[in-house]
């Protein structure tokens, strides 16, 4: 199976479950080369599940995921390893190894996948640290960094191999507004400087509107809309407007069902 030349990611009819619970319900999704795509949605909407499936960390119930012409659902270990060398992932909490210094964490992919000498690897590590405004922090342990610094260090590790495709999970979560803006600018800088395709999973509206070329919004395991920032803002979908205007969901409450739920603990 191959994706079209224009698209670097193609997800078709993706259905996933956690046990008996269905999480994604027939997702169709594609990302063009060089774009910044933001995936949004509330808690439990399935955005992190979609991300984990694109990273081939989970196996779907059905459907296909093609990334850079590789069918990641059916790919063997070797093909997947090759594909992953072209991908970078920045995890929500950084996911740095606590037993290593920041510098050792960042240079790890280079040490494993290239035959560069240690001096060149050190220079490349410092270059990425400079890019993330973390120059001079390479000898510190991850426990000595703040939340924002951890995310930037995680991002430095994700881009150390100059990947074609970068996934970023919740870049702004838990950060102060200034640090969040700095990270948004860093994402834009990375796309422009390194021509990366970037997938960002977030629930921060301001950040999404600033960085996205297109936004995909998920609700209850289905895609509600995919469009540019203006298209999202002008959407007539009540759920989208509720999200943009930070209005609570207007859920119809059946009195009998509510009493049953309270007394029996079952739906």
């Amino acid at each position: 199976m191959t994706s079209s030349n224009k698209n670097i990611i193609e997800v078709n009819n993706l259905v996933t479950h956690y046990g008996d619970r269905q999480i994604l319900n027939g997702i169709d999704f594609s990302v063009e080369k060089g774009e910044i795509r933001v995936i949004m949605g509330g808690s439990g909407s399935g955005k992190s599940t979609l991300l984990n499936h694109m990273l081939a960390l989970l196996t779907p119930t059905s459907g296909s995921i093609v990334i850079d012409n590789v069918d990641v659902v059916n790919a063997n270990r070797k093909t997947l390893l090759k594909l992953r060398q072209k991908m970078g992932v920045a995890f929500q909490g950084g996911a740095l190894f606590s037993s290593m210094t920041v510098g050792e964490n960042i240079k790890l992919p280079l040490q494993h996948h290239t035959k560069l000498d240690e001096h060149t690897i050190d220079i490349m590590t410092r270059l990425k640290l400079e890019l993330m405004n973390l120059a001079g922090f390479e000898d510190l342990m991850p426990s000595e960094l703040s939340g924002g610094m951890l995310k930037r260090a995680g991002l430095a590790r994700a881009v150390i191999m100059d990947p074609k495709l970068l996934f970023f999970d919740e870049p702004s979560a838990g950060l102060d507004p200034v640090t969040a803006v700095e990270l948004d600018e860093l994402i834009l800088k990375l796309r422009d400087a390194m021509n990366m395709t970037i997938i960002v999973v977030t629930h921060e509206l301001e950040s999404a509107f600033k960085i996205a070329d297109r936004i995909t919004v998920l609700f209850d395991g289905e895609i509600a809309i995919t469009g540019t920032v203006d298209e999202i803002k002008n959407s007539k979908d009540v759920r989208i407007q509720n999200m943009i205007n930070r209005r609570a969901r207007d859920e119809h409450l059946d009195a009998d069902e509510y009493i049953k739920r309270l007394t029996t603990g079952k739906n």
Partner: protein
Amino acid sequence: MLTVFMTKAKAKIEHLGDSGVDIVESSGRLGVFLFNTLSRLWMYRFPLEETIKQLLFIGARTVPLILISGLFTGMVIALQFYDTLIRFGSVDLLGAAVAMSLIRELGPVMAALMVIARVGSATCAEIGIMRNEQQFDALDCMAIDSYHYVMLPRLLAAIVSVPLLTAMFDTFGIGGGYIVGVLIHGVSDGAFLVGMADTIVWNDVWMGIVKSFLFGLVIMSVCLSKGFYLHIEQKQSGAVGVSQATTQAVVLSAVLMLFVDYIVSSLML
């Protein structure tokens, strides 16, 4: 009343079935984990640097604990044997009795228990926290094999370290026995040493080596797999999950170690 009793009994039987399924699943996972880890020996280059780091943590840093516990274990065994043997006028056998019990049995078991206490629990907690903090997902995404990079060096270091630590435990235990028997209670040092040299045969030493090798394998594979499968096996996540996994790892590795001890003893005696 009878209905209530029947319902409760049925629930208990069902629960028993669940526990049985859990045990079978857990054993299967342990087997798959061990196979996956050892298969990396011929799939990738030997992880020398990481193994040396782990040898330092599992082996070298456990030496002081092994020496102290070995010394006191030898001293207390010598004291007990002295008290028994003197009643039969066979105190000359003290060196042989101390050495035999240490080399065949107490040395491997006590050294393994010390490794479980110091290394096994710490390793399981470390691996569990790595799982909680998505560090294994990060390794997968960086195309770095977790079994090769994290698991194999720890397993190899344990397999190498435990027999060496056992040898040190035995040596210091015999030293402790000498102090109590010869220096404190006045047993003839010639009888102590010659009796020991005459009684201990190569098969006794070989049994200790086989046991300690297998103990290293069992302890580390249980502790690593309990941490690695934390997200599957533990009902609660976070700190509680890590704490439960660590407790289970310590208990299971100790019980399995004693089970292996019996099997090896019954095969080699």
